[in-house]
């Protein structure tokens, strides 16, 4: 894959890899929620502490919300901070859902921190994070 990223990595080895991951993560978060302030709390991220198979890691995200027309979560975003690309999924929620809860399965290349963000209809963004250890990486093999 010859991309701007790989050219940059060649030019800036060896520090580029870590810096690029951070930049890609920041860009992905900005793409998801813009410049809205992010606060911790009001959202729970449930994951196993240890994933034997990084290819199938169960994840549950639950935000506190009555899910009414007046007060509901509009989106949940999932990021894997140490994957080759940090984006996992974004979910658009509506008040037809009884709870602001989504369960999914994700890929993790290595042990890392997961970040989930929930946006509500008043523009607030909440964050939860979790560290997961991974026995067998699920992205590149």
């Amino acid at each position, binding site marked *: *894959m010859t991309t701007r990223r790989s050219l940059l990595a060649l030019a800036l080895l060896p520090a580029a890899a870590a810096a690029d991951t951070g930049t890609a993560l920041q860009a992905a978060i900005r793409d998801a929620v813009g410049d809205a302030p992010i606060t911790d709390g009001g959202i729970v991220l449930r994951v196993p502490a240890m994933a034997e198979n990084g*290819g*199938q*890691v169960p994840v549950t995200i639950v935000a506190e919300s009555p899910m009414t027309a007046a007060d509901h979560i509009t989106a949940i975003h*999932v*990021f*894997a901070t140490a*994957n*080759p*690309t*940090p*984006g*996992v*999924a*974004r*979910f*658009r*929620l*509506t008040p*037809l*859902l*009884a*709870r602001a*809860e*989504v*369960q*999914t*399965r*994700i*890929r*993790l290349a290595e042990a890392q921190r997961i970040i989930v963000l929930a946006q509500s209809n008043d523009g607030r963004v909440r964050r939860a994070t979790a560290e997961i250890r991974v026995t067998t990486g*699920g*992205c*590149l*093999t």
Partner: protein
Amino acid sequence: MTGTLSPPRIRIPRQARAGEVIEIRTLIEHPMETGLRQDGARRDMLTRLLVRMNNETVLAAEFSNGTSANPYHVFFVRMERTSTFEFTWTDEAGRSARAEARVTVG
């Protein structure tokens, strides 16, 4: 990258009481191949899942590289009346797989 997508599997109750919260589980077999692996497999990704109830959007998901193969999702809906659910997955080539389910309330 050829042929059609696998038929999705939906687990949903056939009946519910008015006001009951039901759990909906969906699974579709798909490699979710990112194209990043060392064996050089070509990219082949589902990008979207759209769930509608009586033609109104309930949940819309967009998948990136970190979503596992055979995407599996669980979510919860409160039932007020007999409803028809429609589930549609779409891949990067524009192909789609669709399933429907009806939940009777009464």
